[in-house]
């Protein structure tokens, strides 16, 4: 398994531990459905994904998954409060046009919102910018700036500030070191490579 694939599976396993069996899950930015397929198999969830890209929706459909091609905020607006048990926004939040709008709408439609993101406060990412003077490139962000989608990188400190400013309750957090495996106990904004949060309405 490549380093990237390994990291992806770690991400899935943490989310898998948090997800209630047989719950109703919505995956925002579901891609080709890897996470949904894992959760359906490991936790027997009923999963729906949203993505903008036809090929990704087609891949989900071919895997037997339910997926919707369209804008995630417009999708969520079509549902009543707490329609979903859990809404997952894994490694998508940095690519959104209106991250706050998406998270707040997810908190309405879902009982719990799981957000996972790469911590750009991680020391290696800081060094990348500071010493090399270059856009961060690593096992996760493999592409040069001119081959990448627009991104809005955030750090753990940024995200914590956002949650307290918007009075969003953090029900659970997981900070993982650079290997995305070992829990990070101290100075997460500097030492954690990846962060996962379970959010709920205050």
């Amino acid at each position, binding site marked *: *398994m490549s380093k*990237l*694939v390994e990291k*992806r*599976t770690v991400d899935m396993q943490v989310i898998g531990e948090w997800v209630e069996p047989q719950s109703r899950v919505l995956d925002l930015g579901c891609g*080709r459905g*890897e996470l949904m*397929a*894992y959760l*359906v*198999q490991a936790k027997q969830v*009923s999963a*729906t994904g949203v993505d903008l890209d*036809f*090929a990704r*929706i*087609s*891949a*989900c*459909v*071919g*895997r*037997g*998954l*339910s*997926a*919707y*091609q*369209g804008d995630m905020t417009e*999708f969520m607006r*079509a*549902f*009543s409060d707490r*329609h979903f048990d859990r809404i997952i926004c894994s490694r998508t939040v940095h690519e959104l046009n209106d991250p706050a709008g998406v998270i707040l709408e997810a908190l309405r439609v879902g009982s719990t919102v799981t957000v996972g993101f790469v911590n750009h406060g991680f020391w290696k990412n800081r060094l990348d910018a500071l010493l090399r003077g270059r856009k961060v490139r690593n096992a996760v962000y493999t592409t040069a700036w001119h081959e990448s989608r627009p991104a809005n990188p955030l750090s753990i400190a940024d995200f914590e500030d956002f949650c307290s400013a918007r009075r969003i309750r953090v029900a659970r957090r997981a900070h993982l070191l650079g290997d995305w495996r070992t829990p990070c106990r101290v100075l997460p904004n500097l030492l954690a490579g990846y962060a996962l949060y379970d959010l709920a309405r205050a």
Partner: protein
Amino acid sequence: MPELAQAPASPHPRHLAGDDVGIVQARDYYHPGPFTFASGQAIAGFTLRYETYGSLNATRDNAVLICHALSGDHHCAGWHSERDAKPGWWNNLIGPGKAVDTRRFFVICANVLGGCQGSTGPSSTDPATGLPYGIRFPFVTIRDMVHAQKLLLDHLGVAELHAVMGGSMGGMTAMLFATEYPVFTKRQIIMASTANESAQAIAFNEVGRQAIMQDPAWNNGDYPREGGPRVGLAIARMMAHITYLSDAGMDRKFGRRKRESAGGESYTFDAQFEVESYLRHQGESFINRFDANSYLYITRAIDQFDPARAHGSLEQAFAPVQAESLVVGFTSDWLFPPEQNRSIALALLRAGKRASYAELSTDLGHDSFLLESPDLYALLRGFLERSEAYVFDFAI
């Protein structure tokens, strides 16, 4: 069990294509018992003309029902003879190894009740009078069409539908199969369709009906088989055909190009632009294959289709559905636009059903569901052939 509707391969090369169903024959199913329509009116029996491709398996659960659109028919794949200019209307999709794989599935397509391609409709002879029914034929709803087709499927020995699929009115038919026969229908594919037409779509249908009914030859629906409101029907078809295309698609296909024969003579009302002669040709060929009264009945059935109104909401209408659903919209379809297709998928999801929505970017307008697109084929094949037990694969 029905025999394979496939004759020995013809010497003509295009019928020999490895992924073509070849020469096919239509058959008639006669239902001898009385059939009562939603309106309460009844007929003593009815015929549905249909075609099948592939064969029903031992467990009788590999049937895929294809549902046609307003002006479509039962001939959706293969060729009727070696001299045919065109194959069935969904030949690009259906065949051995194609997206709807006839090596795997028993594919069935029937002309709807109320139609005019061999199924019982207003142009059929009323046994009570010995004359065509005309507008004495009972009003037909999409639900009546579905009920009649279910009787055909029972006759063919189909135990359950692997899938029901269709575009436009065919999507409405599929939708009702999944709600009327929830245990029987395992999958539904709804393409370029709507759960209720907009005022604009009803308006276009009404103009078509008026073109027919204002033609003196319509004569309140009483006209000889070879006659009738040919002018009105041709105009209805010309107008409707515009709604099946898109501005960009027409511009690409015709632009402002003029017919070669038009020469420099601008000061006449003869067809000068290619788009004019194309539409005139569409109108002309339609009157030779379609019955004006059927056009009235079927457009009326489409206009009245509104399961949300019948059940209080679309979610309630979809409450019995057990099928997995795939809804496909097309960006340039302004007759049944993407939003109307999205709302079908969203209502299914709100009702707690398994549903997907995919959207293809095309410039072919409403007719896009007939598109030759590898992306569309892959999507449909993936939905039809996915196995229930998916084994997780970490490959990205």
